C-alpha cells in the first residue's frame, strides 16, 4: 500500500517537474490521480477570471470537446459548493437533492454514484475544484484523502506557475510592443509621418483591423491633425464623447462598444483619450480585434491597458513633434522675413537713385511685383487729389517672369512694359467708398477677403479689376495719408501671405515719404521753372518798358515841331497857286507829316501811354464795328468775309484797345491778301482751368508767314512790308496781354495764317497800371509741315 502510494507521489512529482507544457502536466496529473484512486473520472473545474463561474477544464479521459464543457456557478452543485466553502466533500447519488444539483455531471458520467469534491487552492487563491466520479458508492480512506490533498496542492502549484508564466509572457509581450511603439515613434519628428506610424503600430500590436487618431484644439474643438490605418467602421470618437461616459471605479476613462453595420456584421471599437499638457486633446481608437480564425473579437481589459500605455508614449512623441514643427515653422518664417527685409533694403537703395516721382513709382511697383521682390500678382499706386478730395489711380503693374534671373537691384531699375491701366480709377474719399478710401481716411491698412460679400469691395473700379482678395496700405508722409498701395494675387489665385503683407506695411511708410519728397521736389522744380519764365518775361517787359519810355519821350518832343511844320505847310499850300510846282512840294511835306503823326500815334499806343477805359462789351459787336473801319480796304482787295460768331457773355475790356487789336489783325490780313481771298472770323467760348475765355480766330488765305520770319512777327518794329511801323502785331499782343489774354498763331505755309485771340471773360477785370511789367502772353504753335 505504502509502495503504491510512493509510486503515485513519485509519478506526480515527475510530472510536476517535467518540461512538458502546463496543460499537459495538468492533464497527466488528473489522469494519474484517477488511475491511482481507481475512480471512473477525475474532473478539474477552473474558476474564471470573474470568479463567478467554474468551467470544466480538464478530464482524466482526455481533452474536453466543446459540447462537453460543463459549468457551474459559484454555490451551484457540488462544484460550486466546494469552491464556496473551500472544503472537501463527498456526496452520494442516493442522497436527496444530489442528482438535481449535479445533473450536469450526468452528461459526463450517466451512472455516477459517488461524487467527491476537493478545492484546488493554495494559501492565497482558489484556482478551481477537483471532482472525482465513480459508479460505486465510495468513501475515500484517510490515506486516499491525503494523497488527493497532496495532488490538489501540486495542481494548485502548477496552476499558479502557469498563471505566473502567462503573466510574465504577457508582460514580455507588452514590453516588446512598447519597444516597437517606442522605436516607431522615435524614428521621426515629422508629425504626419509620426501619426501614421502611431496608428499603424497600434493596430498591429493590438491585432486590430484598423486604428485612428485625432488631435483637436481644446478651445475651438477643431481637428488639428488626424491619421487613420486599415478599416475604420466608425468615426474616431472625440475626447468629449469618451469623457461623457464615466469610467467604473478603478478604471481609466475609455469608450468601448460594438456596432452592427448595415451588412449585419458586428464591429468592436475601443477608444482612449490622449491627454496633452497644453491646449490640445486627442483620441486614439482601435477597431475590431482579429480572432485567430479571422473573426472579430471585442477588446479585453489587457488591450485597454496596453492602449493606455501606448497613449502615454504617443502623447509625448506628438508633443515633441509639435514643438519641433513649431520651431521649424518659426525658423522658416524668420528666413522668409530676412529675405523680405532684404528686398525692402534693396528697394530702399533703388529708391535713392532718383527723385522723379514717375520713376519712383515704377521702382516701387517693380519691387512689389517682381518674383525676386515681394512677388504680388498686381500692384497699384493711388494718390490723393487734395483739391477734389478723391483718390485717383496713378500707376499699376503686374507680375512678370521676364526679369526673373536678373539680380533684384538691377531688375528694379529696368523698366518693363507690364503696366496696368489705372488712370481712370477715381473714388471720393468717403467712408462709404470701400476699403481703398477707408485706408486713406483711417491711415491704416486693410486686408479684404471675398469683398463681394462685404462692404470692402473697392468701389468705382472697373469690373475686370475686381479681386476676390486684396490688401491695401496707406502711403503716409508727415502724418498725412497721401495715397495708397493696393496689391492682389488675383491672376494666380494664391492667397495673400502674411509676411509680404507685413513687409508692405512697413515699406509703405517709407514709400510715402519718398513719394512725398519727390512730389515736393517736382513742385520746387516746377516753381523754379515758373520763376525762370517770369524772370525772362520781366526782362522782356523791362526791355519793352525802356523802349516805351524812350519812344514816348521822343514822340512828345517830335509832335510839337511836326504840328508846326505840317500846319504851316498847309497854310503855304493854301497860298500857292494850284498850278505852281510848289504846290506839289508842299503836299509832299503835308503827307509826310501826316505819316509821321500816324507813326507817333502808333508808337504811343504801343508804349501804353494811352490810357484804358474798361467796360463790359460784346465781343461780336467789337468785331463788327472794326470790320466797318476796314470795309473799304477789304472791298478794294476783293476779300470775302466769312463770319461764324457764337453768342457769348460780355467781356470786361477796353473796347477801343480791343478794336485796335482786331483792326491790326484785319489790316495784316488785307495786306496778306492783296490779290483777293477770304477772311474767316470765328468766335467761340473756351473753358480753361482758371475760368471761361472767349476766343476769336481770324484766318486769312494769304499763303502763310515764311518760316524764317515766323518767330519775329511779334517783335516791335519788325515788318515785312515796305511801309508801316511793324508795330501792328506787337501792339495787338500787348493789348491782349494787358487784358490777360493770349495771341496764338497757326501758320499753314501755302495756305494762310490763323491768329487766335483768347480773352478772359471776367476773371481779371482789374486794370493794371499800364506799362508796368505785364508780360506779352503769346505763344507760337509749331507750324504744320516743319519745325522752326
Amino acid at each position: 500500500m505504502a509502495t503504491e502510494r510512493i509510486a503515485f507521489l513519485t509519478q506526480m512529482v515527475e510530472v510536476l517537474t517535467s518540461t512538458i507544457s502546463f496543460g499537459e502536466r495538468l492533464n497527466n496529473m488528473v489522469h494519474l490521480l484517477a488511475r491511482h484512486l481507481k475512480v471512473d473520472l477525475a474532473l478539474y473545474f477552473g474558476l474564471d477570471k470573474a470568479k463567478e463561474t467554474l468551467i470544466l477544464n480538464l478530464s482524466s479521459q482526455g481533452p474536453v470537446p466543446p459540447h462537453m464543457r460543463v459549468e457551474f456557478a459559484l454555490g451551484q452543485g457540488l462544484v460550486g459548493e466546494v469552491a464556496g466553502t473551500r472544503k472537501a466533500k463527498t456526496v452520494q447519488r442516493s442522497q436527496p437533492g444530489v442528482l438535481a444539483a449535479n445533473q450536469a455531471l450526468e452528461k459526463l458520467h450517466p451512472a455516477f454514484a459517488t461524487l467527491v469534491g476537493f478545492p484546488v487552492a493554495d494559501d492565497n487563491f482558489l484556482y478551481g475544484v477537483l471532482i472525482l466520479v465513480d459508479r460505486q458508492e465510495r468513501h475515500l480512506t484517510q490515506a486516499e484523502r491525503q494523497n488527493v490533498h497532496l495532488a490538489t496542492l501540486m495542481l494548485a502549484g502548477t496552476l499558479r506557475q502557469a498563471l505566473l508564466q502567462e503573466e510574465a509572457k504577457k508582460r514580455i509581450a507588452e514590453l516588446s510592443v512598447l519597444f516597437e511603439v517606442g522605436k516607431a515613434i522615435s524614428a521621426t519628428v515629422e508629425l504626419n509621418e509620426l501619426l501614421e506610424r502611431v496608428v499603424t503600430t497600434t493596430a498591429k500590436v493590438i491585432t486590430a483591423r484598423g486604428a485612428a487618431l485625432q488631435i483637436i484644439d481644446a478651445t475651438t474643438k477643431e481637428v488639428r491633425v488626424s491619421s487613420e490605418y486599415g478599416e475604420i467602421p466608425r468615426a474616431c470618437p472625440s475626447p468629449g464623447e469618451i469623457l461623457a461616459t464615466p469610467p467604473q471605479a478603478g478604471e481609466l476613462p475609455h469608450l468601448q462598444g460594438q456596432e452592427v453595420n448595415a451588412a449585419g456584421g458586428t464591429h468592436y471599437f475601443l477608444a482612449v483619450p490622449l491627454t496633452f499638457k497644453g491646449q490640445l486633446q486627442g483620441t486614439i481608437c482601435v477597431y475590431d480585434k482579429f480572432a485567430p480564425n479571422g473573426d472579430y473579437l471585442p477588446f479585453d481589459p489587457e488591450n485597454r491597458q496596453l492602449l493606455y500605455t501606448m497613449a502615454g508614449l504617443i502623447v509625448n512623441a506628438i508633443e515633441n513633434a509639435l514643438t519641433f514643427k513649431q520651431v521649424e515653422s518659426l525658423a522658416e518664417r524668420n528666413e522668409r522675413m530676412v529675405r523680405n527685409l532684404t528686398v525692402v533694403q534693396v528697394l530702399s537703395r533703388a529708391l535713392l537713385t532718383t527723385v522723379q516721382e514717375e520713376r519712383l513709382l515704377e521702382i516701387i511697383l517693380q519691387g512689389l511685383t517682381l518674383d525676386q521682390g515681394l512677388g504680388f500678382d498686381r500692384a497699384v499706386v493711388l494718390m490723393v487729389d487734395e483739391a477734389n478730395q478723391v483718390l485717383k489711380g496713378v500707376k499699376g503693374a503686374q507680375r512678370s517672369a521676364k526679369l526673373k534671373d536678373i539680380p533684384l537691384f538691377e531688375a528694379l531699375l529696368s523698366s518693363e512694359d507690364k503696366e496696368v491701366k489705372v488712370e481712370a480709377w477715381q473714388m471720393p474719399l468717403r467712408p462709404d467708398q470701400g476699403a481703398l478710401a477707408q485706408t486713406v481716411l483711417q491711415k491704416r491698412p486693410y486686408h479684404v477677403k471675398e469683398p463681394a460679400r462685404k462692404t470692402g469691395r473697392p468701389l468705382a473700379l472697373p469690373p475686370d479689376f475686381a479681386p476676390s482678395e486684396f490688401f491695401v496700405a496707406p502711403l503716409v508722409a508727415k502724418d498725412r495719408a497721401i495715397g495708397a498701395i493696393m496689391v492682389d494675387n488675383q491672376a494666380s489665385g494664391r492667397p495673400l501671405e502674411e509676411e509680404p503683407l507685413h513687409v508692405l506695411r512697413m515699406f509703405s511708410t517709407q514709400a510715402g515719404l519718398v513719394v512725398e519728397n519727390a512730389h515736393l521736389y517736382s513742385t520746387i522744380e516746377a516753381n523754379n521753372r515758373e520763376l525762370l519764365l517770369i524772370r525772362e518775361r520781366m526782362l522782356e517787359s523791362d526791355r519793352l518798358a525802356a523802349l516805351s519810355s524812350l519812344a514816348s519821350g521822343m514822340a512828345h518832343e517830335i509832335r510839337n515841331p511836326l504840328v508846326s511844320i505840317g500846319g504851316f505847310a498847309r497854310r503855304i499850300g493854301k497860298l500857292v497857286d494850284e498850278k505852281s510846282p510848289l504846290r506839289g512840294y508842299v503836299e509832299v511835306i503835308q503827307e509826310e507829316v501826316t505819316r509821321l503823326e500816324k507813326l507817333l500815334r502808333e508808337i504811343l499806343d504801343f508804349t501804353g501811354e494811352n490810357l484804358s477805359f474798361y467796360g463790359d462789351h460784346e465781343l461780336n459787336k467789337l468785331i463788327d464795328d472794326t470790320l466797318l473801319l476796314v470795309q473799304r480796304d477789304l472791298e478794294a482787295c476783293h476779300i470775302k468775309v466769312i463770319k461764324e460768331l457764337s453768342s457769348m457773355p460780355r467781356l470786361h475790356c477796353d473796347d477801343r484797345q480791343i478794336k485796335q487789336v482786331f483792326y491790326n489783325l484785319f489790316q495784316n490780313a488785307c495786306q496778306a491778301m492783296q490779290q483777293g481771298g477770304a477772311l474767316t472770323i470765328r468766335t467761340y467760348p473756351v473753358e480753361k482751368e482758371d475760368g471761361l475765355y472767349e476766343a476769336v480766330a481770324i484766318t486769312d488765305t494769304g499763303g502763310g508767314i515764311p518760316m524764317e520770319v515766323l518767330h519775329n512777327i511779334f517783335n516791335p518794329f519788325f515788318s515785312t512790308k515796305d511801309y508801316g511801323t511793324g508795330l501792328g502785331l506787337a501792339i495787338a499782343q500787348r493789348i491782349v496781354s494787358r487784358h490777360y489774354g493770349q495771341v496764338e498763331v497757326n501758320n499753314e505755309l501755302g495756305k494762310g495764317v490763323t491768329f487766335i485771340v483768347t480773352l478772359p471773360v471776367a476773371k481779371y477785370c482789374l486794370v493794371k497800371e499800364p506799362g508796368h511789367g505785364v508780360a506779352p502772353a503769346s505763344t507760337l504753335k509749331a507750324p504744320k509741315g516743319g519745325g522752326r
Partner: protein
Amino acid sequence: MKKILVADDEMSIRLLYSEELKEEGYEVYLAANGREALEIVEKVPLDLVILDIKMPEMDGIEALRQIKERQPELPVLLSTAYGEYRQDFATWASDEYLVKSSDLEDLKSAVKRYLKE
C-alpha cells in the same frame, strides 16, 4: 469879334494857331505860359481859351483851374502833345481835350462849337 486866347510855350505853335484863328475871323491874344494867360484873362473879356498843358512857370492844368474858378462860364480847350492825360480832362473841368495835330480842322471845329457859331 470873338476874342480867343492861345497859351503855348512853343512860339511856332502860337504863331500857327493865331494865323489860322485870325483867318477864321477871331481876335487872338497870345501867352507863353499859364501866368501870362491868367493876366490876359483878368484884363480882357475873352470868349474862349486854348491852353497847352506842359508850359514853364505855370502849366495849363493850374491855369485851367484858376480860370474856371474865376470865370466858370468861359470855355477852355486843352490842346496838347500828350494823349495820355485824356482821361483826366473831366476832373480838370476842361471843356475839350485835343491832341495836337498838323491838321487844325479838329481844333477849329471845336472852337466853332463852343462859340456857338
